[in-house]
């Protein structure tokens, strides 16, 4: 296997690990699926829609997100997602874990 492919796979795994935290942190305010994809992209996190939508469903079934279908500004119906109170608690804890992990990794890699 070429190095490029190896690196690509590892980056994919890394990204998959952090995408839940990124989504939870962005959903402090309501977003619909496509706007969330763009928001993630604007932050430098390119996420495939086939990764994002199943993830949103999973987070909702775990009680970390809430969603409802709405028509805003006479546009087509869209499903809006927002973080739930339980999701906020989990996010706060995840942020601490993340800080600890990045600190450890910084030490390890320096």
């Amino acid at each position, binding site marked *: 296997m070429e190095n490029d492919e190896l690196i690509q796979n590892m980056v994919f795994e890394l990204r998959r690990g952090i995408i839940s935290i990124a989504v939870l942190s962005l959903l402090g305010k309501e977003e619909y699926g*496509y706007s969330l994809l763009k928001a993630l992209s604007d932050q430098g996190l390119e996420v495939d829609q086939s990764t994002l939508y*199943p993830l949103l469903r999973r987070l909702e079934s775990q009680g970390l997100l809430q969603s409802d279908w709405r028509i805003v500004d006479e546009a087509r119906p869209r499903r809006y997602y927002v973080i739930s109170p339980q999701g906020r608690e989990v996010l706060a804890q995840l942020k601490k874990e993340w800080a600890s992990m990045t600190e450890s990794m910084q030490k390890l890699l320096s």
Partner: protein
Amino acid sequence: MNLIEKYAAEVGKYLPSRNRADIEAEIRSTLEDMLEERAQAPNADREALTLQLLKEYGAPRKVAESYGAVQYLIGPRLYPIFEMVLKIVAAVLLGVGLLGFGVNAVRMDMAGPALVHALGKLFVDSFGGVMMAFGNIVLVFAVLERVLPLSDQKDLTDEWEPADLAKEQDPDRVKTSDLIAEIVFTVIFLALFNLYSQYVGIVIFNDNQWTFIPVLTEAFFRYMPWINLLWTLQIGLHVWLLRKGMWDVPTRLINLAFKLGSIGLAYAMLIGPAIIKVNTESLAGTSLAEVARELSPLSQFILVPFLIAMIIAPVVEIVQTVIYLVRRRSSVPFPVK
């Protein structure tokens, strides 16, 4: 229906019905948002953009799979038992087929091209029956896949303990694979006796063709209501046990009652009129009559030991169960429920 709607419906085909409509609506909404943004440029060709967008979004089945929508006819939990049952049935069919062929080959003194021809004809003639048997097995497992709860998948969850490997198996814990195999074989025999009883018999190679002679007599069919009742109740008990996961005193006592019923049935068949017989009268005047007359005593020779075994095996099981229940009762300080 436009292309986006068709695409969402195509994804929906591979999704479970529970949340199909919801996921389809979300896919439609997202694709329309994406298309709206791309189509803002002047002179944009919406149709070409839609095609490009759908191509990027991915093959419908792959998109459905990303939602965890892989559906099984027979899932990984039942597959090993399914494979085992299939192998047993295949081995039995092959064994019976080859035995019948061997007897006929010796009887007719077949050799060379005649032997190959007869073997080839046997394979062709029995193909339909074999496929039917395998089809019924798949059907039974597909139903079990949907009836059995997921709670018996303890080994796939955190509840699984490596230390359990060293422990002696709890005698009250249901052996899932044994019960499933019993259910499948009971269903196979119920189907065989009720729907395909004409296929229970012997095959004779005569005048360059295989002839099938059914052997079940009218006396056998008089027992069918009792066989159906007993075996259906047994299947019901086994499904109940698979859902509960544990034997208890009431289920063991019900099982004992079924064993007693089986013994009674086998005894009645043993002392009553013959339940299998090669009907030589119907073959009178044909070239098969003599062969059938030769084989007639052979059928009783096989049946009697079989019925005796059908009496002895449940008796042994009843004795084992009673000993277990008595020991268990005396080893606990209060009666088990």
